[in-house]
């Protein structure tokens, strides 16, 4: 097991390294730079040059990259060019908002996904199956920017039940924070849950006519026991993988959700930093989003490995 973990971790590190290079070159090769943004449209070339020098942007790219990497590794995220504040602090201030959102969305997604999945697979009522199936198909069509608009229109504009956007601190003002979380988290969870449900259901149905189910039957085990002790554990894999991927992508998805629901989170910070070519900030935020995704995949892989001895103990195919 430990060797398996090590291998996976090394892999992830390598990937992140490559990603960091890509992001860095992407930003630095693209037109525009923070100096000219800082200087403003009316600045003269000399003014821009002076600022660029001040920011150390006139050093060769390679030097800048390794300087950045070095700082990253020592835990120093650097200082935002345009906002002139420690990036760690900037992220700290926004992280709460985004974390609230993604966490709430993740919980909704997983809980509903799994519950619907088991119902879908085990219920004998055709009606229920079809209803869930349809929900799945439709809500697939509801990416945050679609469901978001609908939700806002219904709950904020038409019925005036919930705020259309903004955020609040869970600590400072829990009530408001929750009210403001409801719509966006639903919007973000909506497309994921049914996919997970379907995957799980499909896998459960497949496992149900696995041979080892016959063995369990021949042992005299009842249906309940067979389902929960034998079938479900053997069916979690694909659903878990999907969960991992989707949770990993939530941080990225937050960008859209935050734009629609006017939440000042990391997403809006990312867009801003990209538009102002705030290299360091954008780099860190992009890395953050990608790292989150990769880490989540890693976690799920490990969870699955923990469940499945064949992976854990390295089965020979």
């Amino acid at each position: 097991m430990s060797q398996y973990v090590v291998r996976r971790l090394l892999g992830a590190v390598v990937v992140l390294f490559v990603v960091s290079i890509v992001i860095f070159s992407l930003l630095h090769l693209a037109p525009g730079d923070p100096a000219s943004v800082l200087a403003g449209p009316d600045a003269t070339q000399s003014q821009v040059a002076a600022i660029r020098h001040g920011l150390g942007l006139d050093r060769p790219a390679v030097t800048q990259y390794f300087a950045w990497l070095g700082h990253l590794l020592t835990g120093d995220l650097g200082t935002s060019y345009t906002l002139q504040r420690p990036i760690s602090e900037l992220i700290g201030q926004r992280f709460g908002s985004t974390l609230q959102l993604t966490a709430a969305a993740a919980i909704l997604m997983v809980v509903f996904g799994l519950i619907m999945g088991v119902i879908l697979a085990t219920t004998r009522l055709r009606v229920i199956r079809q209803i869930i199936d349809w929900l799945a198909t439709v809500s697939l069509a509801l990416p945050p920017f679609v469901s978001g608009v609908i939700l806002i229109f219904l709950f904020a504009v038409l019925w005036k039940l919930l705020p259309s956007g903004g955020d609040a601190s869970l600590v400072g003002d829990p009530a408001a924070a929750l009210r403001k979380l409801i719509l966006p988290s639903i919007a973000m969870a909506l497309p994921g849950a049914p996919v997970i449900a379907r995957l799980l259901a499909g896998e459960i149905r497949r496992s149900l006519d696995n041979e080892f189910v016959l063995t369990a039957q021949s042992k005299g085990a009842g249906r309940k026991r067979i389902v929960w002790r034998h079938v479900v554990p053997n069916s979690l894999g694909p659903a878990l993988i999907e969960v991992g991927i989707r949770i990993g992508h939530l941080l990225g998805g937050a960008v859209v959700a935050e734009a629609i629901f006017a939440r000042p989170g990391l997403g809006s910070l990312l867009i801003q930093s990209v538009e102002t070519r705030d290299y360091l900030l954008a780099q860190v935020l992009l890395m953050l989003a990608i790292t989150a995704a990769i880490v989540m995949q890693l976690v799920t892989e490990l969870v699955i490995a923990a469940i499945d001895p064949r992976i854990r103990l390295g089965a020979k195919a």
Partner: protein
Amino acid sequence: MSTTATLPPVGPAQGEPSPDGRLLTRGLWGRYVQALRSARGAAGLGIVLVVVLIAVFAPTLLSYGAYEQGPDALTGPSAHHLLGTDEVGRDLLARLLAGTRVDLIITLIAVPTAAVAGTLLGLLGMLSRFVGALFQRIFDVLLGVPAVILGVAVAIAMAPGMKSVIIAIVLVTLPMFGRQAGTALAGQLPLDYVAAAEVLGFPRRRIMLRHVLPNIVDAIFVRIAFTMAQAITIEGGLSVIGLGIQSPQPSLGSMIKGGSAYLLTTPSYALAPVGVVILLVVGYTMVSDALNQAVLRK
């Protein structure tokens, strides 16, 4: 030839079930027809076709062009403007149809590109194990990156617009095809018919394209239908955060972005494109479901 004397009678005749119970009269492509005849498939295909036809032909019936501006802005639905007008007095219906066309064009360029390129790259493992493995790893990484983030990355590299959106969609969906082809290939390679082809001395390229590809093509078609839906949501997402289609060109996403500011005064502005997105995505999803049921279920 004396051996033939004691040979068994020939196998089942047409129409009669074969050893594994499938009807012989059903050809290989028949399953697609059957899939699209199924309730789900037919409904899905119907929805998509209707939307496409309207988007393509209806504009000729309209009295306003999608770019034609008028003095009265943001009027709600009226006799002249069935959906009302936008902030510079353009007919929303005309723009909706034009926007739908834009999305259709985008998806029709991006998805097939991604499908073909991705599949071929995914099959590279056939020619060189190393290269194949390398690409699979790259695909894994790309799949790990959230779609929006990829979109942002593209927006950094180039000015937003139709081109950047198409590139973003390709970047997001190509790895899926690549991975799928890779896994499928890995599933086919150990099968003896591939070994047989090699023993018979067929060139590897022929084996890849003539033998393996036809056996994984089903999975690709199913995914294409599904990816069409996804592509539309990607365009929307990007346009909503301002990194997608740029004014004055309409697109479903950019109209939703523009209209969401007027939900109070002119709801039709945002809700109409929202409706079209839902129709298209549901339609494509149903088609891919149906194909999945009929074609992939073994």
